[in-house]
């Protein structure tokens, strides 16, 4: 073994003609919670999608535990943005979580009792087991987010990608996500999280990746999450951060 969970080399991505990511290279250490931070349009989600092969790369290489992603599908779990799907779909929470098992099942095979069991356990881990039979459009935003997390847990992966899991969720869900992230870390799993809220970065993440088209900085949160680095990443937009008293204290803590 000894392979890093994720190695990205010279990754460049463009949406049609407009380049979004330029020559991004990094190597992720095992068993860490990593926040991907950057302004809107910095390419945070694009980075995740390109790594997962959901959008084409202009060039670059992605290795998951030393091999191309296509050969390591079962080692990777993914939580897309909640708004990316229509929740008025005729299905219930348990069924959505069960979709996390589909990769293991492969073609044509239907989920069985063992998959149902795994899905129920995953729902339980996010505190949603009593909503298993609930139609998904009847769930609150936070509950929908937790269903998505449970689906990723049901994938039983080693390396997780989460696209803005904290956006638009209630306090209970935020707490549930945090304890879940720490559980995953305890199990030696690696999690990359696209994150927006600068004030919580130092509390949540071991490492931080600052992104704005280019990779601005990446490393231990204490070393990287500095005012100077944020200034470089956010450009003129950082003034918002400074005026916010809460963020100011957070920066001071460092």
């Amino acid at each position, binding site marked *: 073994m000894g392979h890093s969970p994720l190695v990205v080399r010279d990754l460049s991505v463009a949406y049609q003609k407009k380049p979004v990511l330029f020559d991004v290279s990094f190597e992720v250490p095992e068993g860490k919670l990593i926040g991907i931070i950057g302004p809107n349009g910095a390419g945070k989600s694009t980075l995740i999608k390109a790594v997962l092969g*959901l959008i084409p790369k202009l060039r670059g290489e992605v290795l998951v535990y030393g091999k191309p992603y296509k050969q390591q599908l079962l080692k990777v779990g993914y939580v*897309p943005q909640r708004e990316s*799907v229509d929740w008025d779909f*005729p299905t219930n929470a348990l069924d959505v979580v069960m979709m996390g098992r589909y990769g293991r099942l492969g073609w*044509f095979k239907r989920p069985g009792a063992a998959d149902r069991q795994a899905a129920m356990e995953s729902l339980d881990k996010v505190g949603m087991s009593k909503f298993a039979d609930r139609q998904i459009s009847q769930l609150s935003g936070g509950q929908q987010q937790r269903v998505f997390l449970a689906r990723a847990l049901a994938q039983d992966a080693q390396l997780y990608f989460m696209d803005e899991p904290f956006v638009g969720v209630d306090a209970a869900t935020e707490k549930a996500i945090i304890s879940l992230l720490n559980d995953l870390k305890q199990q030696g799993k690696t999690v990359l999280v696209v994150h927006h809220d600068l004030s919580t970065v130092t509390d949540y993440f071991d490492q931080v990746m600052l992104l704005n088209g280019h990779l601005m900085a990446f490393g231990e949160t204490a070393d990287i999450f500095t005012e100077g680095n944020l200034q470089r990443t956010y450009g003129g937009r950082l003034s918002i951060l400074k005026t916010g008293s809460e963020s100011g204290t957070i920066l001071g803590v460092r």
Partner: protein
Amino acid sequence: MTSLVALLTDPNMQWILLGCILLGLSSGVIGSFMYLRKQSLMGDALAHAALPGVCVAFMITGTKSMFGFMIGAAIAGIVATFAISALTRYSRIKSDSAIAAVLSVFFGFGIMLLTEIQHSGAGNQSGLDKFLFGQAAAMVLSDVYTMAVISVVLIGICILFFKEFKLLSFDPGFARGLGFPAGLLDKLLMLLIVIAVVAGIQAVGVIMMAALLITPAVSARYWTEKLGVMVCLSGLFGAIAGLGGTVISSLGQNLPTGPLCVLCATVVFGVSLIFAPQRGMISKAIVRLNARKSLEQGVGAQPREERAL
């Protein structure tokens, strides 16, 4: 009543009936996935685009063979989908406008070819104008056999790929992340639609097929919150439309079967819209009324337990 019994015991009629039921069944099943993927309009476009394909196939082969039509319609469908995605990608045109534009161009071209064929006087072109609205009465035993085979294939593929189609419909990004080839599955669904459209040419015609693909699915969505049930219901509603259209058409004064099938499907939709539990208009009105009542009694002020989370 006696005429109905006589009708149903007439073997020729039985074949037509069976053909229309099978057609409604399979188009209802496939249409469900199209509807859930928000590609109802795409189904419409594919149905219209099939016309020039079928005409060209006839001009080349000179025969009315189902298989030739299918290839022609499939090629035309592929060209149409490419045209739609190219228009959306390389211009500022949004997909709904692109679909509308491509649909009308293909259909116009198809009508032109149809006129050309009819004026060519090849002799065996009679009945080709029925491609537009179909002519179920002209169905012969071999047509029914072909339709039976097509239905079995279409429904079989939907059963086989049920899990994959479900995932693709709900969350294509996640499907791709799991390693399922979302693009290929998408094309497979399109192909199934084209096959269903061609199968329906004889009975209801290309234009009416679009309605048979979508209306049963929309109706079925009203009755259930389970995908499996919805797909079955949609098939059932499609079959009812096929059955109803055929029976009414043979009872009445030579009314065309295809449009009657579509009207039957619309009646089913109307009933669903109004009477369906939970999603129907009556049930929604009752829920609103109860909510207002409980609010007046002060019960509504209590937040529901799950909302508090």
